[in-house]
């Protein structure tokens, strides 16, 4: 009798019930707005500023100025001529010479072939259009009134460029082979490094997960070591090994380590742990039932490998490949140290900005670099979202069988990889301790007298530690609180979705690009946040933002494991959400909170690319000091500083481990049944 026709049920017209917000709702929304604002200020606005910079062109518009020259008595009777006509007559500047950057200045005396600063001739100059600008010394003149100057002052007149918007910078970029060749270089270096790293990492992870080889714990530890050093450290080791005076130079048969070879070897070193971790996770979740099925079907080991193992790990492999690709193509430190004349995109940004002060072109290269990085990132996200589906609660973990022959082969292979990793680090340490390679091999601590070198001395080191600590504390708070708000607040769906998207963005943005974007955004005197430029605060800010995504994902994963109804229960008991957050959420998620903080610390210690544009003489950093000392030819001290970073990070890791264990024992008693 009440099986009603569906047509009867139509939502009646009328206003949708709008919930009254509780105090907690309001607070959580306010919190989310604050963190979203933080991300806007530290990420979206700077990137937008950079993007608009890349489309800004500056050119001296000579036709906007008018000149008049007096006779020898100082009386003006001659013709008024505009700058363009003068240039046509004197042929002082070619057309392309009139293109410039935002800081461009153009002297005017070249327009007057018979100019002499001792001449009694006087000059008049004015902007013929409103808004035109020229400098006399450092005084800006933007009126259209005539300004009369003696010849000695006239030589201090400098024209300022006019800004316009368009694709000119990009056209300029792609018509300069020296620049766009870097795209090709960057791409093939990255592809090659990816292929090598992923292959090695796969077999290494395979050996650790699927064989009964010995010393697995040791190999796992060694595989993680490259995470603790700046990416440019392997470059320094390679210089000692294969450089012009290298120990093993002969092994290269005359080829030079400075260039693609060095970059690829170094990239394999510093991307190896990333690839290993991802692939290892993929191999660890295998289901032994599939292998039992394969065995019962009498499949050969080879066939099982290709039909069970590889398909099971394929998402891990693809994900690892894109992560490695992204790391290599966006890395700046390594190609800077060992790239020689081989240009890649990330170094181009540095050269354009630091070397040539051409910020607009730096922005253009940044935009070019972001494209493959975002592409790689997007594919990685897509693949990782599929990885999860492979896990089922009914899977039976795979137990490897002893096979002496295979285990021995794997042991040999892993030893070789471990030798490579330890070797690179050992060479750096050795280089740091000898007096003067290769002439005086006696040991000394001279190279640790950083105060005598470029780069800021020991203060850089302590600055780095301070910066890393701040990043860990501030970053963890922001990231975890932000993730909590996104995960656990009610309603406000669109806002939360946008927040999630912004939180994903930093991973796709190379550090160099972020750093450059910060210059554009924060170095603008009109920006109220300008005062933080050149301080520790901006370094912490850029580091937190640069490493936001991984931290955010860790926090979200931990929060997702919390019962969804905790907030409902707390609300029904009329308790503030903040109480729940501090009494339950944070304590339960403490292991993840600690993981996030050590991740931020280690990365803040090693990062070069994000901070290289932003440090000031007072806030020099250890990782940047490595770069600068290497640049100045002090390679041994650079190695010494690099190893200091390594030991600091290793110590931090150990401390983190001990602290985690201690805190877990105290606060996580409830985990024990």
């Amino acid at each position, binding site marked *: *009798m*009440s*099986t*009603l*026709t569906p047509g009867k*049920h139509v*939502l*009646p017209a*009328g206003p*949708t*019930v*709008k*919930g*009254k*917000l*509780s*105090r*907690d*709702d309001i607070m959580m929304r306010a919190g989310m707005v604050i963190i979203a604002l933080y991300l806007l200020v530290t990420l979206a606005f700077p990137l937008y500023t950079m993007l608009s910079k890349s489309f800004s062109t500056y050119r001296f518009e000579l036709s906007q100025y008018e000149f008049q020259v007096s006779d020898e008595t100082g009386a003006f009777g001659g013709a008024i001529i505009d700058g363009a006509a003068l240039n046509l007559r004197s042929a002082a500047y070619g057309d392309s010479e009139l293109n410039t950057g935002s800081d461009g200045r153009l002297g005017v005396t070249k327009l007057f072939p018979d100019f002499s600063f001792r001449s009694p001739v006087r000059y008049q100059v004015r902007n013929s259009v409103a808004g035109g600008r020229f400098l006399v010394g450092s005084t800006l003149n933007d009126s259209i009134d005539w300004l009369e100057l003696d010849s000695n002052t006239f030589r201090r007149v400098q024209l300022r460029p006019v800004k316009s918007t368009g694709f000119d910078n990009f056209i300029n970029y792609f018509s300069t082979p020296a620049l766009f060749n870097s795209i090709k270089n960057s791409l093939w270096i990255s592809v090659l490094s990816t292929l090598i790293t992923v292959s090695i990492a796969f077999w290494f992870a395979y050996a650790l997960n699927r064989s009964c080889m010995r010393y697995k714990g040791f190999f796992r530890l060694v595989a993680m070591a490259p995470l603790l050093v700046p990416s440019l450290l392997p470059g320094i080791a390679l210089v000692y090994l294969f450089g012009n005076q290298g120990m093993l130079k002969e092994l290269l048969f005359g080829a030079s380590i400075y260039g693609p070879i060095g970059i690829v070897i170094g990239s394999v070193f510093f991307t190896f742990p990333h690839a290993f971790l991802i692939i290892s996770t993929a191999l660890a979740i295998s289901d032994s039932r599939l292998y039992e099925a394969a065995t019962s079907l009498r499949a050969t080991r080879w066939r099982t490998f290709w039909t069970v193992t590889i398909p099971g790990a394929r998402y891990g492999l693809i994900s690892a490949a894109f992560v490695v690709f992204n790391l290599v193509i966006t890395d700046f430190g390594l190609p800077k140290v060992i790239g020689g004349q081989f240009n890649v995109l990330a170094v181009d940004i540095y050269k354009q900005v630091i070397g040539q002060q051409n910020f607009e072109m730096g922005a253009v290269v940044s935009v070019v670099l972001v494209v493959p990085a975002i592409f790689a990132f997007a594919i990685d996200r897509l693949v990782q979202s599929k990885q999860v589906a492979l896990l089922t609660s009914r899977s039976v973990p795979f137990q490897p069988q002893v096979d002496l022959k295979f285990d021995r082969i794997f042991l040999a292979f892993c030893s070789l990889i471990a030798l490579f990793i330890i070797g690179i680090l050992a060479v750096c340490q050795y280089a740091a301790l000898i007096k003067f390679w290769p002439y005086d091999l006696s040991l000394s601590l001279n190279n640790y007298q950083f105060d005598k070198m470029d780069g800021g001395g020991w203060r850089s080191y302590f600055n780095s530690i301070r910066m890393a600590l701040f990043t860990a504390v501030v970053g963890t708070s922001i990231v975890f609180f932000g993730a909590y708000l996104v995960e656990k607040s009610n309603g406000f769906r669109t806002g939360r979705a946008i927040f999630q998207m912004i939180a994903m963005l930093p991973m796709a943005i190379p550090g160099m690009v972020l750093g450059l974007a910060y210059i554009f955004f924060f170095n603008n005197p009109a920006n109220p946040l300008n005062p933080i430029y050149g301080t520790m605060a901006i370094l912490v800010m850029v580091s937190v933002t640069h490493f936001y995504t991984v931290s955010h994902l860790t926090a979200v994963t931990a929060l997702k494991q919390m*019962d969804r*109804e*905790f907030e*409902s*229960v*707390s*609300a*029904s*008991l*009329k*308790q*503030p959400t903040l*109480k729940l957050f501090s*009494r*339950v959420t944070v*304590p*339960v998620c403490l292991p993840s909170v600690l993981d996030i903080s050590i991740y931020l610390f280690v990365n803040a210690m090693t990062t070069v690319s994000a901070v290289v544009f932003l440090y000031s003489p007072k806030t020099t950093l250890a990782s940047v000091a490595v770069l600068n000392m290497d640049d100045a030819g002090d390679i041994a001290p650079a190695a010494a500083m690099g190893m200091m970073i390594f030991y600091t990070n290793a110590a931090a890791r150990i401390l983190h481990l001990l602290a985690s264990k201690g805190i877990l024992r105290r*606060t*996580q*008693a*409830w*985990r*024990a*049944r």
Partner: protein
Amino acid sequence: MIQSTSGQLKSIPTDTRETDPASAPYLSIANLWKAFGAFLALKDISLDIHEGEFVCFLGPSGCGKTTLLRAIAGLDLQTRGSVLQGGLDVSNLPPSERDFGIVFQSYALFPNLTIEKNIAFGLENSGRNKSEIVARVAELLELVGLPEQGRKYPAQLSGGQQQRIALARAIATKPGLLLLDEPLSALDAKVRVHLRHEIKELQRKLGVTTVMVTHDQEEALSMADRIVVMNEGVIEQIGSPTEIYRAPANLFVADFIGEMNQIAASVAADGRLQVGEKSFACLDHNFAAGTAVVAAIRPEDVIPHQTGHVAGEGEENCIDVLLDEMEFLGSFWRCHLRNERFGVSGLIADFSVNAIRRLALERGQTMTVELPDSRLMAFARPEAQG
């Protein structure tokens, strides 16, 4: 007493305690709609619940029962319609400004807090001093029968114990309304039956108005004062457990609750139900002659007779069947009876072990069964199949 929008109900006397129709309901839900995009999860739900009542929302998964509970709690606001609690319009209030305690299927106990701290969670910042809180926690632990467990962590308790703690936490602040969202579904069968009884006892003792969501009919039948049967976002029937079981309002309820034989039939001119050339008397239906209906009877209402049994006074609904299959289910036998009139699925009847022995029934024999006219029901045929 009962307002249902989804059709008039059969007038059946209530056999549970009467709630005074004159008194205002404690919880009053009026014309509630919930839309998720284009999907309507709740369609024009209206329902009154009186103070001290234990009401179950029962229905298959996806019927909207949990959505309705969450709307009452303010956890997911309805799209249209109003909720009045204790005479107060709470339609758009956030959960923290409503008066209820809630227990979830997952218990949602805070894993890092001891049992005591879990229960005390809602008592803090409520004007009670420490010793009052301690006393109240002890009282609650006593009430749920776990007085010794206060210092343990939730993970150290069994599922049933955890659920009792969740219950204690929910009633700690003496809320006017207790909401239970499938509280027993995560437990194993034995514990479930035991806890069913305990929750009901506790509710009776405290007199707290309680709404429980469940998909388990046994749970609903054994615990509720009234059951709200829901399907696809509408209320199919509201009534006491016996009403719902004995007099289902429609075929959905008949089919969802308990077992029900269904036989295609039509209403003859004399009001009897025509199945093939055989007609059966049915006391209680008001379908017009010629209507296509479904005749229905519960397996336990089928009465077994010896073969060749001569129908006596009031025993006219007899029919000969083949005893095709017998399943022993402990206290009774489930028998599959064949007669071409009943279609391929035949008729299912539950005969007591006694009856089987007395009549010496064996598989493969023919026998006579009676479908008592007071137990035979008629329902409108669902359009989709009709």
